[in-house]
């Protein structure tokens, strides 16, 4: 297999699935590990690729770290897990919570372990008989903003990827119902809607949510798994204006030095604050001797990423800051084309969602009749693609070679 891969790598980009001599190779990469599945048939590629991702997830839950060493140290348990997770090429149980109930690190005597009812239950994600002294639910509404700004400063693509994450510490088999300010639901029920309602474009639910029920009357009802899980995710492609605006100008004197001026602005309400803002600005690979001057925060050079990072612990709304950077360039010219990587930004804004989504209620019903209080937190952060192409050359050193 490594031979095949190397061979492929030389000629064409390796795709996650390819076929060779009648055998199909499907693989994913996790850090420096390849997880590979083989098939001689026209298998369900999506299912298998997803299973490999799930497998990686379960192994991480078990060993904290998934790397060559943890595999070597734990091969016995990995065999056990594989045996339980996949049978005859068909995925079986992949819920790590449930697996942990009967496949454990320490070996047990036979009498102790039995297959948890949950494995085959309609509710395959929760075991019975869970007890908590204090019944609590924590809800985190996390919105990740993906956004792309072109060189002239207009937003050409933006989306909000939202997720409702839960930490559930409830006894027994509780029935939960979640109410959001979902526009479609308000319309369906004809309820007067106070304040803002939002229209989610695509909603995905954890397998515990009753999909048919949601389809009928937009009610999100479910029996939650125990502990931490992602209840739902949603997507909105309503236009978002950049919450954090960055622009940079570059003065490139090829063969001697390059200078940057970076401006950042918090374009959100004055009373909010963005935490842990990190701005990545790309510099030429061969830049050296960095000098920085920033009006706020700190700047570090990250040569391994060919970039410098401007870190600002707290950025207030409607505030604006400047920084300057200066690099030396080797006098021998690099003939390669400049890569013009966009500026990327990381940030977190607590107590705030861009979409305006709100949790209206979370009802918990359980036979024992206990009461529990949900805690809700909101946070907005950068997605994996919050980029701005707003790097302008102030002095264009001739890219076009003289004729």
């Amino acid at each position: 297999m490594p031979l095949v891969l190397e061979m492929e790598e030389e000629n064409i980009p390796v795709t996650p699935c390819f076929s060779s001599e009648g055998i199909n190779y499907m693989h994913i990469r996790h850090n420096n590990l390849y997880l590979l599945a083989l098939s001689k048939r026209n298998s369900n590629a999506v299912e298998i690729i997803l299973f490999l991702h799930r497998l990686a997830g379960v192994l991480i839950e078990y060993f904290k770290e998934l790397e060559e060493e943890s595999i070597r140290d734990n091969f016995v348990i990995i065999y056990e897990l594989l045996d339980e997770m996949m049978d005859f090429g068909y995925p079986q149980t992949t819920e790590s919570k449930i697996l942990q109930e009967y496949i454990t690190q320490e070996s047990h005597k036979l009498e102790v372990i039995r297959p948890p009812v949950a494995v085959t239950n309609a509710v395959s994600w929760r075991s019975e008989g869970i007890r908590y002294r204090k019944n609590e639910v924590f809800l985190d509404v996390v919105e990740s903003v993906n956004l792309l700004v072109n060189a002239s400063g207009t937003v050409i693509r933006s989306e909000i990827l939202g997720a409702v994450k839960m930490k559930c510490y409830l006894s027994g088999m509780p029935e939960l119902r979640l109410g959001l300010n979902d526009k479609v639901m308000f319309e369906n029920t004809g309820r007067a809607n106070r304040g803002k309602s939002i229209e989610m474009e695509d909603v995905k639910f954890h397998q515990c949510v009753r999909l048919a029920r949601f389809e009928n009357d937009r009610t999100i009802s479910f029996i939650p798994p125990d502990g931490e899980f992602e209840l739902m995710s949603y997507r909105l492609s309503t236009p978002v204006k950049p919450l954090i605006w960055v622009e940079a100008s570059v003065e490139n004197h090829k063969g001697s030095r390059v200078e940057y001026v970076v401006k950042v602005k918090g374009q959100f309400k004055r009373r909010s604050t963005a935490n842990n803002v990190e701005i990545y600005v790309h510099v030429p690979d061969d830049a050296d001797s960095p000098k920085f001057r920033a009006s706020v925060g700190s700047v570090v050079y990250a040569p391994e990423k060919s970039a410098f990072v401007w870190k600002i612990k707290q950025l207030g709304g409607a505030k604006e800051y400047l920084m300057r950077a200066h690099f030396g360039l080797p006098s021998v010219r690099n003939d390669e084309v400049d890569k013009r990587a966009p500026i990327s930004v990381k940030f977190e804004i607590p107590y705030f969602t861009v979409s305006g989504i709100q949790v209206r209620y979370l009802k918990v019903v359980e036979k024992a009749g206990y009461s529990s209080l949900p805690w809700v937190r909101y946070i907005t952060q950068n997605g994996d693609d919050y980029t701005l192409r707003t790097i302008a050359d102030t002095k264009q050193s001739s890219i076009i070679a003289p004729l």
Partner: protein
Amino acid sequence: MSRAPPRKGENFELRAELNSEYRDRRADAIKRVIANMTVGKDVSGLFPDVLKNMQTDDLEQKKLVYLYLMNYAKTQPELVILAVNTFVKDTADFNPLVRALAIRTMSTLKAEKILTYLGEPLNRCLKDDNPYVRKTAALCVAKAFELKPELCVEWGFVEMLRDLVGDGNPMVVANAVTALMDIHEAAQSMPPSRPGSPTADGESPPPSATRPSPTLFIIDPPTLSKLLLALNECSEWGRIALLNALARYKAQDDKESEHICERVMPQFQHANAAVVLGAVKVIMIHMRNVGRQELVTQLIRKMAPPLVTLVSSAPEVQWVALRNINLLLQKRPDILANEMRVFFCKYNDPPYVKVEKLDIMVRLADHRNVDTLLGELREYASEVDVDFVRKAVKAIGQTAIKIESAAGRCVQLLLDLIQTRVSYVVQEGVVVIKDIFRKYPHSYEGIIPVLCANLDDLDEPEAKASLIWIIGEYAEKIENADELLGIFLESFKEEPYAVQLQTVTAIVKLFLKKPDGSQAIVQRVLQAATKDCDNPDVRDKAYVYWRLLSTDPAAAKAVVLSVKPPISLPQTTVSATVLDELLGEISSLASVYHKPAATFIGRGRYGAEDMAKRRQDDLEDNIQEKALQTVAQGQKAENLLDFDMDEPAAMADTSISASAFANAPSGSQSASVQQALAKNPLDELMDLFATNTLTAPTTTPMATSSPSPFGMASSPASALSAASITPAPVKPDAFSGLDDFGFGAAPSKPAPKTMNSSQNDDLLGLF
């Protein structure tokens, strides 16, 4: 036990440990054995010693011993028999985990003998009280079926599986369906008799009777309602199996199809991408029968958001999803009409994702979003990944060809990019602009000087050939065309064949358009091509031109300067029937590769072995031929843009070119069609040659100056043979449209017919 026990080394030590009186030492030894096995060391010699440790109450140890057995059962079938007793005992254990484990392992052992003992325990486990055991046993039937299909039917296991579809437990239902689907697939792909396989020996009655009928798993309306009911209850993986089964169901009427679509639709909201795509598949299949237009519209509308969401999953999942989306768009381009932005490449997307996104973006381009698209493509063209940049430039060209109103903007963008003088951008740009000229002839001639200015930067054959083609095509508009072509003539001998071919054609075009002043250069190129060139295509082409020019310049004009059909961007990359087949298999490997399953796995699940064997026997097979055709077709469709139809040699140059494939299977349909069509021009050629030989001494002044080329064509028969050896490359420009007839991939004009008559007139004139 003929094998001598090891006397020293690690295995010897392990053997001692395995027989130790202390339990923990034995347990430890087993782990070491398995570790050795995992890294590929041969520990099969320890078989009997490991076997002794099978009866244990330590579950982990039991699992490891089972694992060892699974691995070595095939090589040590006699010894495995010793384990049967323990297995059978374990399948009756009080702990369901042990029962399931035992039956699961037992059915996995690839030993014929074990199988005969499997019947009774499997029967028991299928009826077990515990659903965990039942769901495990269900899959065991599929495993056993793979080894001994007759046995499964005989013992009534398949019947029992069908009963399990109505089980109260969703997981059991899911696995029963999975097993039945698996069995169904296996039965269908099973050849009538399997020679070489042990099942085919005397014991089995005539094949037609024993061979399990391909209808082992019939999904009837009662089953359907069971499936739909279980769909909302079972785990994510179970749902995938159920959706697969639903995709196979043949609806009785429109109403039922509608019902299925409505029931499946909520699955779009599932977090698991495979469930979503499974639902898409079911709906795409059953939507064909839905008559109510508003329901179809609703389904299409509901399908879009989940598909878009797939694009933000992990890169590998994303890629698989993108391949499927690409396929869906070929059938229904309207699904994601407003969603092009979603497919904008992210800076850190892996290359395979970016390429796929580019393709989809071009697919979704229309006159409303084209400006945004071009802005994006401009950005991509300045990235560092050479391959991606080239694809981006190519995408600009495709956009120009697709959207006429935006062609001007595309050309401008290409010019901007060419002016950056980045070598690979320039080269790709020239190739792409040639295609734009083919689509919109005489529209953007103003840019030709800019292209010519970059002549020195070109070093790739395709780019050079493209520029030469442009110069030849517009020779009358380019003042220094003879100079420019002269540059290529200088280095004629060193150039690749593709460039040589184009140079010959271009100079002939130049001569026909501007006869005065270019006589010398045409003479030189024909000399060089016929004398110094060792490629038959180039030589033959030059001969044909020479003959044409010397016989009848008017005919030459009609042939060489004929109007070519404009190219267009193909809607689909596969033929309509293949597309429908692939859409029925969404999320499978076939839909990811965009190839029917038969092309990459041969016959069913035994494909790999079959194909290996076939390669050995060097047998020609129908499937392979079909595969070649589809590949050729796909290639052709893709190549429409890459290759100019005028460049037969460029096509012949690339080993995987369409014409090469089409000609390879001589009996194949497309080839014969092409041959039949090619006949027409060949006849003509023969006519030409015939008249030529008759009249040569008097009508061709060139013939006297260099008689050698005519020596070969001195008799009509030999001329014909020379021409018919390589029909494709010899075809002069005017007949290039024939390629299109052969494949039906692009519209073409019936040029040869009309030409035929006009040329005959000319010939008559000669007489």
